[in-house]
């Protein structure tokens, strides 16, 4: 059905709490991504995963880690969330390298108070 699904869609956490954002795709894409979107900054790459257990830092990895144990599933973890991690997080997948189309999920809005 060519879909990227993110859970949860909305989340409010207290500073210092752990956060788990989950992403699934049904296209058997090798490559998956986590971006954050902030007004005026566009989409910033946090992590990229080339396949199971093959993850690489993006442009802003500090404060985040990821896990990919199955090709169709990619998790973003915030250990001890900070207020400046309040943002909208997008997961995406693509077939192979970035020259191919990215398919995005609908986003997870995280508020850290």
């Amino acid at each position, binding site marked *: 059905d060519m879909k990227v699904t993110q859970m949860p869609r909305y989340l409010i956490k207290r500073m210092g709490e752990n956060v788990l954002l989950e992403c699934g795709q049904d296209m058997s894409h090798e490559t998956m991504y986590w971006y954050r979107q902030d007004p005026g900054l566009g989409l910033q790459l946090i992590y990229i995963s080339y396949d199971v257990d093959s993850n690489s830092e993006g442009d802003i990895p500090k404060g985040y880690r990821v896990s990919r144990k199955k090709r169709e599933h990619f998790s973003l973890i915030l250990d001890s969330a900070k207020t400046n991690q309040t943002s909208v997080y997008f997961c995406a997948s693509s077939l192979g390298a970035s020259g191919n189309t990215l398919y995005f*999920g609908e986003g997870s809005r995280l508020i850290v108070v």
Partner: protein
Amino acid sequence: GDSVTQTEGLVTLTKGLPVMLNCTYQTTYSPFLFWYVQHLNEAPKLLLKSSTDNKRTEHQGFYATLHKSSSSFHLQKSSVQLSDSALYFCASVTSSGQKLVFGQGTILKVYL
């Protein structure tokens, strides 16, 4: 390093008028450029892509031409509709060939 620049943060237009959203890029890789569109509370989705110099690419009434000589990939439409109101991102494959770098985004608002 690699970068994409969108000079307009907000463009407001009356329905039926033409629009051009600017995009310039900087990369040492052979350029591969994209436009993504994000409607309110929706996921970004691909609108156009091109890696061919001086060839016009079209989709859903929008078009863009990659000009390597000026490092540009401006998005145009001859007559905007209310439904075109959205956030538009330009993106380029980075010099490593592994990632995309996105511009800051341009909000297009179309009024009656």
